[in-house]
């Protein structure tokens, strides 16, 4: 597995260095001067950007050069390739969170409250959000390449618009059901607030593990069925 991970890192070296430079500049500006965007949202967006970029760049490169057959003809199982890409994506997202936290701690002019982001509740809720997104994106990317990501994003947007329209036209926002955005927002506020307990956190851990396990096994099965 480490061979595949090392190879993917070598391929993405320039891309990762560029992202690191951009992320550092944006973060320095954000930490010192920007107002309005929550530091929590920034941390999650940065991790999402790095994780998504890693998967999409790899898929795009394989699509462009048609090298999936080359990689799969080497002495390595397809399940190992999928596992390596899962581990690498998560490792890079977690490293992004650590890097952003270190910058917050080191920058002398930082106005970000480090305690707001470096705490168990935020870390677990962050992992939950990232897992929810990536457990859906990764199987599409692994099975269909860049086209899969595009299809996923288009389908997600269409579905979101349909759900919002449904709530609007059927006036469900005034009924017992809150609108989806309000529902998510309330849920997150509850989990990050003082009312959430250790039990809630354990449930989050279980959901994170379940999302990732389901996503991994689905990706593995899809990739095994892919004719190259």
């Amino acid at each position, binding site marked *: 597995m480490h061979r595949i991970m090392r190879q993917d890192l070598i391929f993405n070296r320039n891309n990762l260095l560029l992202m690191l430079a951009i992320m550092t500049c944006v973060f320095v500006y954000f930490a010192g001067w920007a107002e309005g965007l929550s530091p929590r949202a920034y941390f999650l967006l940065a991790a999402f950007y790095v994780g998504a970029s890693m998967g999409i760049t790899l898929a795009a490169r394989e699509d462009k*050069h048609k090298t999936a057959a080359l990689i799969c*003809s*080497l002495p390595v199982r397809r399940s190992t390739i999928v596992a390596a890409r899962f581990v690498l994506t998560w490792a890079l997202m977690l490293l992004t969170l650590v890097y952003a936290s270190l910058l917050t701690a080191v920058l002398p002019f930082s106005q970000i409250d480090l305690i707001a982001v470096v705490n168990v509740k935020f870390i677990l809720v962050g992992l939950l959000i990232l897992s929810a997104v990536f457990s859906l994106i990764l199987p599409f990317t692994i099975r269909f390449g860049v086209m899969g990501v595009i299809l996923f994003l288009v389908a997600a947007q269409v579905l979101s618009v349909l759900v919002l329209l449904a709530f609007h036209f059927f006036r469900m926002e005034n009924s017992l059901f809150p609108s989806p955005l309000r529902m998510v927002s309330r849920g997150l506020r509850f989990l990050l607030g003082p009312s959430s307990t250790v039990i809630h956190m354990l449930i989050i851990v279980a959901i994170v593990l379940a999302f990732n396990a389901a996503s991994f096994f689905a990706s593995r099965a899809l990739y095994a069925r892919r004719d190259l």
Partner: protein
Amino acid sequence: MDDALVIRNLSKSYPGFDLRNVSFRLPRGYIMGLIGPNGAGKTTIIKLILNLVRREGGEIAVLGRDNIVDETWIKERIGFVHETPAFYGHLSVRRTASLVGRFYDAWDDGRFRRLAGEFGLPLDKKVGRFSRGTKMKLALALALSHDAEFLVLDEPTSGLDPVFRRELLATLSGLLQDGRTSVLFSTHITSDLDRPADFITFLLGGEVVFSCSRETLRDSWVLVKGGGDLLDERSRPLFRALRETPFGFQGLTSRGAEVRRLLGEKQAAYEKPSLDEIVFLMSRES
């Protein structure tokens, strides 16, 4: 005698194409030519051996082991050349070799550099700038640099100049001196197999027409030439393939003795067909 490759009742379907109950075997230490017109199923069989496509039925044993159960063990011992070699265009030859070599325990970097020198591959040039022929040379150098026991070459001579083609075929024959290396060589250029191939498997429309040694092939098929008046209800069924022109006919048969008895020695001409003639007549017939 143990086998490098055993394929039994292999099947795979695509829209508009079926590979049906393909079976053949290649003993260890020999070269097999996999021939047939475009679309016959050669590349599909090779991809099935490498597990690049999923098989729908049958069995494949490489060096005595199942190609899916022992996939990693088998691929460690296979040197593979794809019909359209795909590499990361932004990497140099040196970087490509380092990337591929890392996956093989028996990778011999010295051998790769020697082959790259022999094949005229510039180590620091980006692969994306190479012609198809040069990419094929790179694929061959990679396939020959990890002490593979079984070489699987899919149309390896396409895109190569005639000089390098001859050199490659001589290299392949030289490899077999150890009695351990086996080669499966797919091509539709039958002249490539005139010298090196010990066994020939001929595919047509996803089915094996024959799979035998070159000697058996030479002894069992007869090319019959004669006037059109010789063809009648009794003689026609004896031919596997027939080509009729206003001046006469050419017929391919594996029942030479019966044809001779029926048509007589003087009325028709009997020849040993070349591989090219067998492929041409059978493909045309289908």
